[in-house]
């Protein structure tokens, strides 16, 4: 089960492109695209910048007006979905 302390790995078969507040992730193994909106894009940018999940969470918490529990829940739900689609690995 994912937690904010889980170490994440971004697989080599994932390409991505950030367009303003949106990001497009591509699993080149399945030829499937995945779109991210504002906070998801910020999270992805931080993770690809080498930040840990915990650090990324703290940074986003400081940047947006959002309740800590809600943000944690949203981030973990998104990451589970990304994991299911082969876009992040643990």
């Amino acid at each position: 089960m994912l937690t904010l302390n889980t170490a994440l790995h971004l697989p080599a078969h994932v390409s991505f492109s950030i367009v303003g507040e949106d990001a497009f992730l591509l699993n080149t193994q399945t030829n499937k695209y995945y779109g991210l909106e504002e906070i998801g894009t910020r999270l992805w940018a931080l993770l690809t910048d080498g930040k840990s999940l915990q650090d990324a969470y703290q940074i986003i918490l400081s940047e947006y007006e959002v309740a800590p529990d809600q943000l944690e829940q949203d981030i973990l739900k998104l990451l589970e979905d990304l994991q299911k689609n082969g876009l992040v690995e643990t």
Partner: protein
Amino acid sequence: MACYRCAGGNFHFPYPLVELAPFEIDDGAAEEAVSFVSSSCPGNEYPKLISRTEGWVGNAQRSVEVYDTSQGILLKVAGSRDLFIAPHGESISKQNPREEFNQLDREVILGPALVLALALREVWSLHASAAMYKENVIVFLGESGQGKSTLAAYLSQNTNWQLVADDILPINLNASGASIFPHFPQLKLPTNAQPGIDLPENLPLKYICVLTHAEPGEMPDLQKISTAQTVQSLLSHTAGTRMFNPALLAKHLEFSTQAAKQIPAYQLIHPHRRDTLPLIKEFLEKIC
């Protein structure tokens, strides 16, 4: 040997292809041509399957298999001869190039094989129609049956408008921006009515227009869309992406992103009714 120039490149074939007749060039003028050569898929190698899908080729739904090899891409379409496309799209080959092409071979060559060869040169094939108003090329994207062809054909009947493409439009990005290549066989149209033949070999693309469904009774409307929506449209309406290997998919994503940042794009609510076409023409002329 027959030599043709389309989509900004030269193509050599051992036998003439009637579908490419409007694009025929002098054999001596052909340099760096994509050619049909006698070499084939490298032997002693187990090719890696990239995709196995069904596609509409030669008036039938057929299995299309694409394999990655160390020396390029192997394309197998059920009922047709295997084709091998070199890594940078510089040649397309089959087992015996001396055998004349049958109808299905020609459709595979002019369809998926050509799309793949162009993609390997980073020229992408939009599934689109296009028309030009004065100097402004507008490409129309949308699902099949949405009215892309009808709209482009209608516009081209009007003063200052010209048809550019009706089905497939090659596009790439270069230092000056997005360019489209009007010299490309539009297989839905007769050989003697190819629309792009009188146009320059490449033209800047000014606008993207994504046709969307209108509710019954809804009037046409033209609204600017976001860069992210434009990326999505380009990703969805590029032909052949199911055949791309991971490297091509990544390049195509990069192209779609960069093109979307550079080209203004609109959503056209398109009722697909003849009586609304004059209003759509007005909208489009206004943005140009």
